[in-house]
């Protein structure tokens, strides 16, 4: 079996950075973690960075003049700079810290969209969206009577761009879609779609929850207007995410939540908003988590996103090849050449929950269900699927164990 630890990428060295990968799920059963699309594991440098904040310089940010407050503020803002640089933003002030991708998308729906969309305006989404990029727009559609249309997903799991181009003729105000599908693994042609959407006069919001962790991202090169992502899927902590938008757009947008830190001056009956990005960060933020987010992108950068992506591609292609050889398996989404490190599948006659439960007996963590994409599962006429997702710390040896355990699942069910 070829172990993928070539000179450029030493997976065993990387695994040693993640303390959780040393644990066993039950005595003698090592953990095989194939659920990074839900949340990734965290390396020591991230855990330590957050620990260090609480142990050494815990203080609130942006107001105090004492030593601890200054150190905390500096680390918080350094993290913003690091995260902004990670996605090649021109300016750290274009990076708003949020709770997660979901909150980033909701922020756009509550501020930009409320101010700019009126009754009858069209927002174009896709059939492959996570609920986080569907429900905020459904809620807004009820409130503002905007229209929603959806780019269909083809049988092999790609967006139907012919229909997209037809929809653009209706002059939508916003096109909002995922960069990489969390179920199909499909990598959407963001740059081309953005170019076409702009030509039709629409703004573009991209859900980067599954892309920023796995491929090098340059928001300027992509040309998008808004880009949303979460720290916890990219070796960072939960409770912190980001929204990137062009400076000019952020400045024009109304504020989001009201409270401390988002203001410049408050009177009894009115206020003036703070500068960007603070205008969108009301209240004490997740300081430790922001610092952990900074440590996470520093860690990923130290390895190199190109190398991480190449390794994931190797593991994913190996897994596609091995899984395809299992009888009665149905793999969702496009072929190995055009997908991210996500493989969702069904086994004939066996419910995904049962698959996941039996895999867990062998220490293998996969996800079962609709992965917050119920309309996409409806599209394929299945109630649920089992999903294995890969990251920088996974090995082809682990994929071999997955295949062995899936054969065991079939044996239990006499399939």
């Amino acid at each position, binding site marked *: 079996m070829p172990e993928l630890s070539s000179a450029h990428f030493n997976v065993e060295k990387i695994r040693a950075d993640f303390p959780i990968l040393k644990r066993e799920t039950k005595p003698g059963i090592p953990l095989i973690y194939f659920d990074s699309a839900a949340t990734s594991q965290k390396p020591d440098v991230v855990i330590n960075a957050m620990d260090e904040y609480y142990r050494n310089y815990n203080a609130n940010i942006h107001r105090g003049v004492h030593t601890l407050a200054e150190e905390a503020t500096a680390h918080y803002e350094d993290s913003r700079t690091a995260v902004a640089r990670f996605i090649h933003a021109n300016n750290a002030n274009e990076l708003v810290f949020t709770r997660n991708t979901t909150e980033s998308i909701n922020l756009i729906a509550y501020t930009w969209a409320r101010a700019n969309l009126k009754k009858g305006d069209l927002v174009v989404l896709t059939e492959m969206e996570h609920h986080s990029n569907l429900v905020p727009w459904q809620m807004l559609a009820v409130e503002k009577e905007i229209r929603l249309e959806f780019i269909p997903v083809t049988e092999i799991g790609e967006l139907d761009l012919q229909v997209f181009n037809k929809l653009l003729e209706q002059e939508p105000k916003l096109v909002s879609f995922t960069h990489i599908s969390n179920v199909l693994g499909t990598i959407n042609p963001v740059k081309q779609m953005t170019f076409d959407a702009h030509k039709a006069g629409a703004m573009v919001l991209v859900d980067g929850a599954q892309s920023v962790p796995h491929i090098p991202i340059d928001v300027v090169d992509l040309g998008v207007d808004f880009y949303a992502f979460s720290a916890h899927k990219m070796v960072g902590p939960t409770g912190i995410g980001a929204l990137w938008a062009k400076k000019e757009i952020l400045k024009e947008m109304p504020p989001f939540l009201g409270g401390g830190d988002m203001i410049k001056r408050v009177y009894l009956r009115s206020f003036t908003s703070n500068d960007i990005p603070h205008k969108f960060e009301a209240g004490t933020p997740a300081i430790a988590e922001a610092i952990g987010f900074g440590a996470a992108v520093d860690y990923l950068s130290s390895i190199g996103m190109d190398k991480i992506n190449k390794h994931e591609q190797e593991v994913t292609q190996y897994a596609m090849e091995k899984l395809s050889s299992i009888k009665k398996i149905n793999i969702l989404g496009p072929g190995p050449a055009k997908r991210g490190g996500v493989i969702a599948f069904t086994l004939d006659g066996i419910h995904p*929950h*049962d698959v996941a*439960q039996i895999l867990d007996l062998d220490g293998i963590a996969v996800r079962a269900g609709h992965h917050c994409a119920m309309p996409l599962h409806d599209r394929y006429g299945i*109630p649920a699927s089992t999903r294995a997702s890969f990251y920088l710390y996974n090995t082809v040896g682990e994929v071999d164990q997955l295949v062995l355990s899936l054969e065991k699942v079939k044996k239990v*069910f006499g399939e």
Partner: protein
Amino acid sequence: MDDLYRELIIEHYKNPYHKGTLEPHDISFEDENPLCGDHIRIDLRVDNKGIIKEVAFDGHGCAISQSSADLLLDSIIGKSVEEVKKMDKQTVLDLLGIELGPVRLKCALLPLKILKAGVYGLGEATDDLVEGG
């Protein structure tokens, strides 16, 4: 292999005794587990003394929810509707003969929730119908 997938459960999942629908029926109710999309409909025929005479369930789901439905329905034939109202979580666990974590417990209890919502004539199947035990 783990107890969770002991033969009894696989057998009732693959070859359920009571799969299907009853037309006409005296009681019918259906609902789903939004977490996993499991969907179950239960139909009952009850005589004028309130005794359950015929049972059937339809739908789709995992081995735990489907075998729980089949075992549960099998156990209530000949019982009164009043007796069904007294059933709780422990009734189902005794039928399945396994221990369950919090997530899979929801799968196992879905059929009882639906059955009780049906016999009580309620609009929805809620968790408090199966607590206790």
